[in-house]
């Protein structure tokens, strides 16, 4: 065991850094706030790296475990540990935080300290979700992440930000309140324990399993988001500042997928199996229906938001197919979607910062003025359309392969994304980027700045690397996914 409690560092360092940034106070010290935030974000990423290097991908169970008593009266522990699934998500989270700080560097010019602090604190809290092995601790982190995002949308958002922030908050809160009841039920029926490990062993009658499953399902389905509880996402994205959209799409949605993997499947496997058809159907609706809805969008951010929902459909589909290639594919899809959606929202941000419009109709012929930007945007658009050689392909491919093992029609409907994904992405690209210069505003555009090029290059490398050589990503997942599937296969009916 390491001398330094690594997981605690990964959680609390960004939070402390965020608090420190808050202390820089008003915008007179904006420069200092930015610098401090960057240092904090990079430090947060650096301290997460030993998790990758020190992770033993052949070992079963959780690693880097920390366990301290927290609330004695209720037998609550500060219990942390990670497996391969959490490892990848933590790294993605820390990485995205750095990007977001850089992306907001110039664009945010009011309440800079608070903006930066919100993201740092959010990053730490989300790491907490991915590390927690205690039910109450998990719930606290899970709910706490709402607050910074609520503030980000509500304060730095667009004109309709209050509606969007409230919708976001109430939607997700409504979902997770039922999850709290499920947690209390599990606490009581396990004889007073919040430990995931106790819950994994706990026999639960079928009817109760179904109720617990549904309670969890609502919480996580809202987060993912799954059809039909997805309508908060397009509004939230449209109103959120670029950084908010990036974190929302890249990490926050993954809390839902992670919740299914960490709680639903292993704790109530029989209900998960019994209700898998229901989840699969909803996921396929997400792929096809939302894919079609995305075609109808005239706002770039809304379009990418719908595209996100459609891609997250692959995550829930893969998880509930219960075979290793599909589940691994779902996790890979989460990571890949983190890169791609972040990249696409940053691309829209780049345009928005210059034109202050997200309407597709206001653009046209951007390539004439911004060829470098157009190249990056093309790469990410193609990745979004699942082009092989980019990360977008890997997860979709794996899930479709896994689906064909279970049912031909699952694979058939999932593969519809090949056409729909390409249609809505490329049609948007065509209308925005190609063509002759559409108007004077487009004619006045400048190509990427050095700062913008920096994060485009970094994301491009990630997208391509993961597409060309995804083996390292799945390698850390094998044992964790096998453990998980073994759990699911074992009935827990008493």
């Amino acid at each position, binding site marked *: 065991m390491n001398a330094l409690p690594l997981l605690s560092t990964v959680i609390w360092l960004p939070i402390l850094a965020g608090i420190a940034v808050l202390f820089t106070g008003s915008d007179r010290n904006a420069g200092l706030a930015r610098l401090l935030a960057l240092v904090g974000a990079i430090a947060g990423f650096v301290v997460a790296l030993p998790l990758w290097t020190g992770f033993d991908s052949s070992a079963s169970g959780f690693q880097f475990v920390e366990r301290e008593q927290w609330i004695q009266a209720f037998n609550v522990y500060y219990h942390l540990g990670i497996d391969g699934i959490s490892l990848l998500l933590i790294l993605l989270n820390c990485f995205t935080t750095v990007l977001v700080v850089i992306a907001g560097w110039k664009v945010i010019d009011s309440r800079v300290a608070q903006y930066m602090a919100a993201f740092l604190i959010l990053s730490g809290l989300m790491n907490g979700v991915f590390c927690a092995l205690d039910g109450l601790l998990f719930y606290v982190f899970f709910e706490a992440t709402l607050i910074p995002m609520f503030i980000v949308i509500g304060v730095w958002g667009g004109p309709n930000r209050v509606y969007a922030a409230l919708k976001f908050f109430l939607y997700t809160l409504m979902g997770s309140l039922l999850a709290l009841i499920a947690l209390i039920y599990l606490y009581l029926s396990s004889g007073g324990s919040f430990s995931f490990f106790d819950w994994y062993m706990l026999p639960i009658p079928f009817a109760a399993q179904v109720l617990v499953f549904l309670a969890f399902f609502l919480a996580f389905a809202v987060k993912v988001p799954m059809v*039909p509880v997805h309508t908060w996402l397009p509004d939230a994205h449209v109103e959120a500042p670029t950084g908010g959209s990036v974190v929302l799409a890249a990490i926050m949605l993954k809390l839902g997928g992670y919740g299914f993997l960490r709680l639903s499947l292993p704790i109530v496997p029989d209900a998960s199996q019994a209700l898998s058809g229901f989840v699969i159907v909803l996921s396929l609706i997400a792929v096809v229906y939302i894919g*079609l*809805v995305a075609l109808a969008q005239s706002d770039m951010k809304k379009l990418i938001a719908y595209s996100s929902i459609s891609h997250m459909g692959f995550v829930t589909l893969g998880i509930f197919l219960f075979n290793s290639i599909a589940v*691994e594919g779902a996790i890979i899809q989460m990571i890949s979607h983190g890169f791609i959606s972040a990249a696409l929202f940053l691309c829209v941000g780049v345009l928005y910062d210059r034109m202050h419009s997200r309407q597709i109709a206001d653009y046209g012929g951007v390539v*004439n003025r911004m060829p470098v930007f157009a190249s990056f945007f093309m790469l990410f658009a193609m990745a979004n359309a699942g*082009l092989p050689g980019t990360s977008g*392909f890997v997860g979709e491919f794996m899930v479709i*392969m896994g689906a*064909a093992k279970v049912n031909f029609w699952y694979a058939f409907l999932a593969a519809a994304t090949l056409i729909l994904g390409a*249609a809505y992405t490329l049609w948007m690209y065509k209308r925005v980027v190609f063509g002759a210069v559409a108007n004077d505003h487009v004619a006045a555009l400048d190509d990427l700045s050095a700062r913008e090029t920096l994060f485009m290059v970094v994301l491009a490398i990630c997208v391509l690397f993961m597409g060309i050589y995804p083996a390292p990503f799945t390698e850390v997942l094998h044992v964790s996914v096998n453990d998980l599937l073994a759990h699911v296969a074992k009935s827990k009916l008493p």
Partner: protein
Amino acid sequence: MQTLYLIVPLAPLLGALLAGLLGRLIGRRGAHSVTIALMIVAFGAALAVFRDVLDGNTFNGAVYTWLISGDVRFDIGFLIDRLSATMMVVVTFVSLMVHIYTIGYMADDPGYQRFFSYISLFTFAMLMLVMSNNFVQLFFGWEAVGLVSYLLIGFWYTRPTAIYANMKAFLVNRVGDFGFLLGIALVLAYTGSLDYATVFGKVDQLAGMNIEIFGGHAWSLVTVICILLFIGAMGKSAQFPLHVWLPDSMEGPTPISALIHAATMVTAGIFMVARMSPMFELSETALSFVIVIGAITALFMGLVAIVQNDIKRVVAYSTLSQLGYMTVALGASAYSAAIFHLATHAFFKAVLFLGAGSVIIAMHHEQDMRNMGGLRKYMPITYATMLIAALASAGVPGLSGFFSKDAIIEATRLSNLPGAGFAYFCVAACVFVTALYTFRLIFMTFHGKERFAVGNAHAAQGEHRDAHADAHAEHDHSHDHGHGHGGRPHESPSVVTLPLIALSIPAIAAGWLIGPVLFGNYFGDAIVVAPEHNGLAEFGKTFTGVLGMMTHALFTLPFWLSMAGIAVAWFLYIKRTDLPAVIAARFPLIYRILDKKYYFDEFNEWFFARGTRCLGQGLWRFGDVRVIDGFVVNGSAKLVGWMAGIIRHFQSGYIYHYAFTMIIGVLFLITLLFMQA
């Protein structure tokens, strides 16, 4: 040797990266020098590999492990046998020629470096496709060539037609890929591997298996897989009804029409099916499907070519028709004949396209053949090479196209699949059609009266003109391809004519290899043919050598059909040039249907494109906006608001309201107490 294998695809990739990323740094000369040098390296390496393979050395191995998931391992690897080695040589050779040609054709284009980067990238992707030893890499190459095709069709991105065509091409291909990926998924689901050797090793187990697609109906698994895979081929190789993208792809610069949309990429589907021959041989249903689709494509697209006036579109429809021939060959289990025709077609069609490009330059981007004529004396080299290619295309004995096409026709005649009779009718009839449209092109372009106005050529309404003008205006380049405006058309520079000459040599001679290639077990184990399907071998029994085949041809139907086609073309377009209009006026319905290409574009635009958009709009407005947000979400918010609105009246804030309620309450309680007592 293994290093050589790697060099073949990686050299063009390096070229693409250098020209693409450092384009501004190395300039125009640097970009074409570096890409062409690396293409020469690739071509040399491909030749060395080819020789090595002819010596009997094949290779099947991994380069690196792409992914391991569960118990499945996906490798990136090469399968080098006679099939892939042949393709490697064809691809690198045509690509090299097109690279050189591009120096002349794109000379003044502002996107010069970008263009070289793209065509090198394309060559890399195509090589990855043909060299693959597994389905994943095949799919990677498959999609990557699609990507580059998309980028190149939309190369002149300011032109609305180009950016419409490239999206259409990508999406139609995606429809094919949809089937292709499902086929791959079924292969993995039932064999547990995507490695060719493993899959083909287990193919006998698949033969007896059934799959229930629609409840209660058991279908042969192999048939389902093969048809799904073939749907992929239909997209990429532009087979009916997924052919619609190819004519529009002519929006791209001519060099890529030659390289991608004639010689190489569109033949990927043919190559793929040949590669999958161990599977297709197990399903007669799938083979029948293939042969019928191919036959429809061959004949009906050939007919459209007759009424086209845009020189590139004639060649494009001709390509569709020739791809139909190859597909028919696949269906007739004459895989080697399909690959043989693929190779000869690559040469003569590349000449036709590059020749057309040469004409287009000479005519200052005029593409309408009605405004050409008599060009023969101005551009003798272009004329001679195109004539050779036309003769080869029409199947005149002695040239490459004759041998490969005749083998296909004979194999179809000898096939006893359901649908083979129809296919034979189509391919035989199409010989006449091919000769007619090819020589219509030659006669209208190079013979007869000069129908262009000298000095005014640039003002003609060529499709290229606007975009070029836009692109040029912006980058302040003059647009004269090295010669003045308004002069008489004259022969293109040597960077253009040399590739034409180099390509017309195999366009003449490649056919002479028919004996060893088709009947000498040239492809060995790479292609599997079930004995009962082997019409080609039966034809081989009568084969007495190249000269024998040529003399024998004089007594066969196809030869005379071909001669008749040329004669009719001569009569209509040289002798009685007034007749075509008369015929068109006489049969207005047929002319209209052909002119509108059977109304496919109109139907697709109306049904699929508009239909899908409307469906998306409808689902969004009804499902998301009205039902979920309007009714459920905002509805429940309103419900809460409404209830709160009622309850609010109880908290009016007036003391006397509260006092009154309290008194009523107290009275009520007291009454209750008394009643109990």
